[in-house]
Structures are given as C-alpha cells and as structure tokens.
C-alpha cells in the first residue's frame, strides 16, 4: 500500500509518501490503526482528516486494498 501525506499530515508524519505491505483488504478504521502505530504524531489529525483514493474522497465504510494509493487530506485551506 502507498500512502501520501500532505500539509500538516506530511509535517507530522515526517514524510510525504511511504509504501508498506498490508496482508489483505482492510477497513478505514484498520487503516488508521495501522497508520497511527507507524506515526503516533498523526493522532490529533485523525478526527479532521479525510482519506482519498483515485482522486476522490473515500466514505468511512470504504474497503482498502493492498495495492491502493491512499492520500491523507487534512482540512484544506485553498483560495
């Protein structure tokens, strides 16, 4: 699985992207548990951060696959 970190998520994770293996499909909750184990500093962002795949936001009940590229989208501030 590839994960992309932007803005505050990038700063807290200390990287803009990483890849790691996941054994099977997983829920967004399981994905977050896995992320927070790797980057505890991301915890404060979790309640306000959305996940995106294929350039679209994911619903909370989405199922993630081992070869997905998932982006963390903290609150946006464009314009």
């Amino acid at each position: 699985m590839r994960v992309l970190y932007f803005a505050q998520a990038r700063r807290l994770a200390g990287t803009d992207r990483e890849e790691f293996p996941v054994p099977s499909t997983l829920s967004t909750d399981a994905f977050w548990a896995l992320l927070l184990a790797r980057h505890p500093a991301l915890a404060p962002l979790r309640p306000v951060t959305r996940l995106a795949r294929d350039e679209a936001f994911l619903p909370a009940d989405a199922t993630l696959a081992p070869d997905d590229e998932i982006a963390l989208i903290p609150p946006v501030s464009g314009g």
Partner: protein
Amino acid sequence: MITVKIGPEPIEPLALPPIAGAGACAEFTGIVRADENESPIGGLRYEAYQPMAETVMRNLLTEISAEHGLLAAHVRHRIGDIRVGEAAIHLALWSRHRGPAFNALVAFMNRLKQDVPIWKTDTLPPHS
C-alpha cells in the same frame, strides 16, 4: 467549456475569451493579504495534491455549471510561494444573464474551501 489549472506561475490578467451566448462574466481573484492571524507576513506558501485538486475542481465546476446553467468556467490556482498582493486564485464564470454567474461564484468558492486539496502550509517572512 471548463478549464482548470494549478501551477506555480503568477496569475496574470486574463483577456476574456469569447463565449458564445454569454452576457455575463463574473470573476473572483483571491489575493494574499499582508497579515495572517493578525501577524504581518510577506506571503503564503501553498501546496496542492495536484491531480486530485484539479479533478475535484473540474467536478465541482461541472456540477455547478449544470446547476446554474453556466456557459463556461475557468479557474487557476497558484501554488508555491505567493507574495503579499499577488493572486492565489482566479475564477471566471460565464452565463447568459448575471444572476447565475454571481450565485455560482459564491457556490464554487464555498465548495473549494471545503473540498479541494490545496493548503496554505507556511507564511513567508515580511521584508524578505
């Protein structure tokens, strides 16, 4: 016709292209102010998840164009370091009459600030 562009280039004034049937063009330019949270700044640094930001803006414009009956929509968002007084975003919407273009301008900017993955990530120091 919908065009979306994100990039580090300065946003220059646009010669409005001819849009068949348009009687109205409403535009918005967002400009970097000299203060952020009441402290003086020299500018702002913007970051985008570029492919997704372009896709989301295009989808938003498609949706809003259908809802308001727009004839064309152009948006440019600058990323990277933007100095005070320079434009971060320029939006132009065309419609037959002015009302739909005005309403769509407000609707797009509200949605942009909720759903388009672009961030102000840093302030630039003043006088640099």
